[in-house]
């Protein structure tokens, strides 16, 4: 050690560093190293409480914190400082990340984590973390580019059964225009998790799944950002410190084909979508306060008939559907941490609007404001036991106006279901919802009990409060093996727009679900992870939404299935995963059981991504058996208007063909002074036998055929990071 350093240390201040994992558990043995100058410094090792102390001279120093199985953390600190440096490791970038991910303690029975590397390097996801959710085990495989491809159906649940959260705030929808992109960019996401079923009481009012996204809140030490362009959209983001404590983050994306005046007779208004996030923060992910604005929107206009097949006058008179949807979020949040308790509090206002119209045949307009307040606390009792508790309050003001469509509205039932129902609606609904929960983690790590209880109250459901008890038992008999058993009660009130006369029924009952899941997780050789999950969901009064009918409930529903997952990963070098899912989802409708909307009997997926120097190669294959749909059984001829009114056949009595898709990707990254440039090329392959997007019918609905999508789709992309 140089004499200069020794002299500096003689006048040193003590710096306390506290190291924890994302769950708040300390990481004993973490190595803390502080650099006084370019090469010398001081180091220490964290004790059993995750605390390490280093002596440093006053001034600015670089701090490096490492631990096996976690991403090394590096940041600049100024000494002296009043408060300790708290380091929380994000999902690991270390070689042993697979092991840690699989064995991480969580109050949720099954949790699929999406991270940036997977999002960026999995073929077919277009660098979009939320698109990757559609490729996870448990998630129903939807046909890409089809009208239903933005629906998230998990373990057989209906799309409306799941809730999507960003920093604890529920967002109305996840994807732009048929799943071309998600509504928030990967660069803004810190963590993204899918909880497919039997999740803890932290989340409620959902009998399906939960997508829990949290914004990236690590403090930028300098201005960083990226710009990207592909054939779909252009976008960019910047994160930059403004002062010692304050930093800002701005991101924006927009489709651009319309800007060039692109339009066709089939698309008089070319699809336009955009999203942006502006954030001002003080502090970091552990402690701080921030404010943010987020916005997303979609719009287009398209002809509902295949204009190529019509003569010019017919094509000119062919009806078009206009569609627009969007939301804005205005929010503030606060994060805090003490020795005993940590948590967050959020307050936000969400505006959601949706418009759909069929020329000359009706329109729908939905508008809502929702105020949300939420607080989540995590505390510790003694060294081991933990508790968590929280509250979620929502107040909404929703208006819905529907002028019903004629027979042609059936052809747009997926996009604007209200038109196809044929009922007028004009109303406004004020609604208040309150959820509270408490949970605990009891017992040693070898055998943990995690009971939780959620209470829900909803002004639309009368004065009754719903109590949903849940329990997760997790056992680790030997290192590398985890057994889990979870179950509980889950309840959900219908969507607000289904409570309007003409759309559904103001008296729609609450859906109640008893859920059970069991599974085993096994790590092999430190890098290979195997997981097997089975589940059962029994539902009372599940909601069904059939084309052309009012939303209603049926007596019962049931989903049973299992998933096997095998995963291997060498961070920043190679990852591969394969999964198989089998399930059966049915509903009891008018005294007979029939397939539910999400009844996908078999799904298989395989993905591999390999970094070879600056080149990344990736491949993905997905297979899924066909989802059910309701066929048509002819029509009634309206002789007064020369139009045909379709007659639906038995609900969900037909199925799409099985679906296969192969995605191939190659990307090359140039490292330039201060920035990197990545060029990527992908090709999406769908065999002709799987390329059916949605059914179409002849003029009198007596014959059914398919609208077929492309079988080969090449895509290029460019991303610059600085």
């Amino acid at each position, binding site marked *: 050690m140089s004499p200069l350093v020794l002299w500096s240390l003689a006048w040193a201040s003590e710096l306390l560093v506290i190291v924890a994992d994302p769950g708040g558990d300390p990481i004993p043995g973490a190595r803390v190293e502080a650099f006084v100058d370019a090469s010398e410094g001081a180091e220490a090792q964290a004790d059993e409480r995750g605390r390490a102390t280093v002596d440093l001279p006053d001034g600015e120093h670089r701090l490096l914190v490492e631990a096996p199985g976690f991403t090394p953390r590096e940041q600049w600190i100024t000494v002296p400082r009043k408060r300790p440096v708290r380091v929380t490791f994000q999902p690991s970038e270390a070689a042993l990340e697979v092991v840690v991910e699989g064995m991480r303690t969580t109050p949720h029975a099954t949790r699929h984590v999406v991270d940036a590397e997977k999002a960026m390097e999995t073929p077919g996801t277009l660098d979009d973390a939320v698109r990757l959710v559609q490729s996870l085990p448990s998630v129903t495989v939807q046909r890409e580019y089809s009208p239903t491809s933005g629906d998230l159906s998990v373990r057989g649940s209906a799309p409306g059964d799941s809730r999507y959260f960003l920093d604890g705030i529920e967002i109305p929808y996840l994807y732009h225009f048929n799943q071309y992109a998600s509504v928030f960019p990967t660069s803004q996401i810190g963590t993204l998790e899918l909880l497919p079923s039997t999740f803890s009481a932290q989340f409620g009012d959902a009998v399906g799944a939960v997508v829990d996204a949290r914004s990236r809140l690590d403090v930028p030490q300098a201005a960083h950002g990226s710009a990207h362009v592909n054939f779909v959209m252009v976008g960019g983001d910047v994160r930059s410190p403004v002062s010692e404590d304050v930093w800002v983050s701005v991101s924006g994306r927009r489709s651009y084909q319309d800007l060039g005046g692109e339009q066709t007779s*089939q698309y008089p208004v070319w699809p336009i979508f955009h999203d942006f996030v502006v954030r001002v923060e003080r502090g970091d992910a552990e402690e701080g306060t921030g404010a943010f604005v987020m916005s997303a929107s979609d719009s287009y206009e398209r002809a509902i008939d295949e204009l190529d097949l019509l003569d010019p006058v017919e094509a000119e008179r062919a009806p078009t559907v206009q569609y627009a949807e969007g939301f804005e979020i205005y929010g503030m949040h606060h994060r805090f941490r003490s020795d005993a308790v940590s948590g967050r509090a959020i307050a936000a206002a969400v505006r959601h609007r949706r418009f759909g119209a069929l020329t000359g045949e009706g329109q729908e307009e939905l508008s809502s404001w929702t105020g949300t307040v939420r607080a989540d606390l995590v505390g510790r009792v003694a060294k081991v036991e933990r508790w968590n508790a929280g509250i979620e309050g929502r107040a909404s003001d929703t208006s819905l106006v529907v002028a019903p469509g004629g027979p042609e509205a059936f052809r747009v039932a997926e996009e604007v279901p209200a038109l196809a129902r044929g009922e007028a609606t004009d109303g406004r609904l004020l609604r208040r919802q309150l959820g509270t929960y408490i949970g605990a983690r009891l017992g040693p790590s070898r055998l943990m009990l995690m009971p939780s209880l959620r209470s829900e109250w909803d002004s639309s459901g009368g004065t009754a409060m719903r109590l949903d008890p849940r329990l997760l038992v997790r056992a680790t008999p030997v290192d590398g093996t985890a057994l889990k058993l979870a179950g509980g009660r889950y309840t959900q009130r219908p969507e607000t727009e289904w409570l309007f006369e003409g759309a559904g029924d103001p008296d729609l009952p609450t859906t109640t679900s008893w859920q059970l899941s069991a599974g085993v997780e096994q790590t092999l050789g430190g890098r290979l992870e195997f997981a097997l999950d089975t589940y059962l969901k029994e539902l009372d009064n599940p909601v069904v939404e059939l084309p052309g009918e009012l939303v209603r409930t049926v007596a019962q529903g049931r989903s049973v299935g299992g998933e096997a997952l095998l995963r291997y990963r060498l961070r920043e070098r190679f990852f591969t995963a394969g999964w198989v899912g089998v399930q059966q989802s049915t509903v009891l409708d008018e005294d007979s059981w029939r397939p539910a909307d999400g009844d996908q009997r078999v799904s298989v997926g395989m993905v591999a991504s390999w970094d070879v120097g600056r080149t990344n190669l990736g491949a993905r294959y997905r297979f899924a058996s066909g989802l059910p749909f309701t066929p048509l059984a002819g029509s*009634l001829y309206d002789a007064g208007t*020369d139009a045909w009114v379709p007659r639906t056949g038995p609900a969900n009595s037909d199925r799409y063909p099985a679906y296969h898709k192969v995605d191939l990707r190659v990307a090359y990254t140039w490292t330039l002074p201060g920035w990197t440039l990545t060029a990527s090329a992908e090709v999406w392959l769908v065999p002709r036998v799987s390329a059916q997007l949605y059914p179409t019918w002849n003029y009198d609905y007596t014959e059914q055929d398919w609208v*077929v999508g492309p079988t080969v789709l090449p895509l290029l992309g460019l991303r610059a990071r600085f």
Partner: protein
Amino acid sequence: MTLLLPMLLACQDPFAVDRHDLVGFRIAAIEAEPVESTTEPRAWDVRLAVVVDGRPFADEQPLLSWFWLEDPVELEAADALSEPDGVGPAPSLTAPEGQSVLGLLARYGDEEQRSFLVLDDTAAAPSAAGARPERVRARAVDLPVDTLDPETSAVEARRNLPVGSDSTSVVSGEALRLDAPGVPNTERVRWMATAGTFLELDGATTDWFASDLTLDEGEVEERADLPEQVVTFLALSTGSHRSRFAATDRIVSAEEPPDHTQVHGRLLYGADLDRPAYATLVADDLAPSGLALVDPTPIDPVPRDLQELELFDPGTTALPCFEPVFGPFDPNWLLELLCPRAPLDGARVLVVPDVWRDAITEAP
């Protein structure tokens, strides 16, 4: 190429049959007119246009059952065992209280068609309802299939083409321009035919090609010129929940067409009459309406007007039709299922050609 191109590149194959095609068993049109009356409830007369096996006549009569309904969806429950409120092709039906929807269950062999009409008393006046086509006019237009491409098929290009006189025949691969006098071109006419391809010009006018074509943005992708045959056209004018139709026939022939007479817009083979005449009807599958004329005997002297014509026995009063028919023979009776073809075979009837009617109508 863009990711959005899937919606553009997403495509479907055309269906073999579209709404223009009069094929198979099809209820092509239903008219309903209120019976003039000062009493309630109001009675309605109905009139159908039906093709059976793709022909405007039937040897075996389809079964037609009529039902009064409160809502069209009730028609889904009707079946062969349901008690109808009326049967046959042209019943006079009186609407019960609270039921203003008239449903039709038509059955032919294994096939069935379900149709309905929402009857609106306020649309009784012709000006409030779909305008009635006086007849269908088909005129020669210089637009052979050989010249069709995206440019020549465009509406503006075709609108400026010169149009000839009304013609009862067309050469295979050539075109006719059809319109329906009495229906303004701002209204909507649905065109249907037993063969060929339509390319509409405006709301009430269309070009028709004596060829089965598959067009993609004006480009001919598939082509099959029609063999020699008779094509039946139907013009259906819709408006205010009231539709009205008119029909005509045209002959596709490379050579001089056979002798024929136009009666109420329809063609009858076997004679080229220019005045009223008695003739014997004989079944002929290749003839329009399935009937041809033999042994025509013109009335001499020629009646000077319709009043004088009424002095002659039309020979139709005793025809074994499902509904009573009156006056000179009208081929539309078969299209409307008033009469099956078989019992008319051999009947001696009075035939009044349109050319004679037009002449006495135009005479001062």
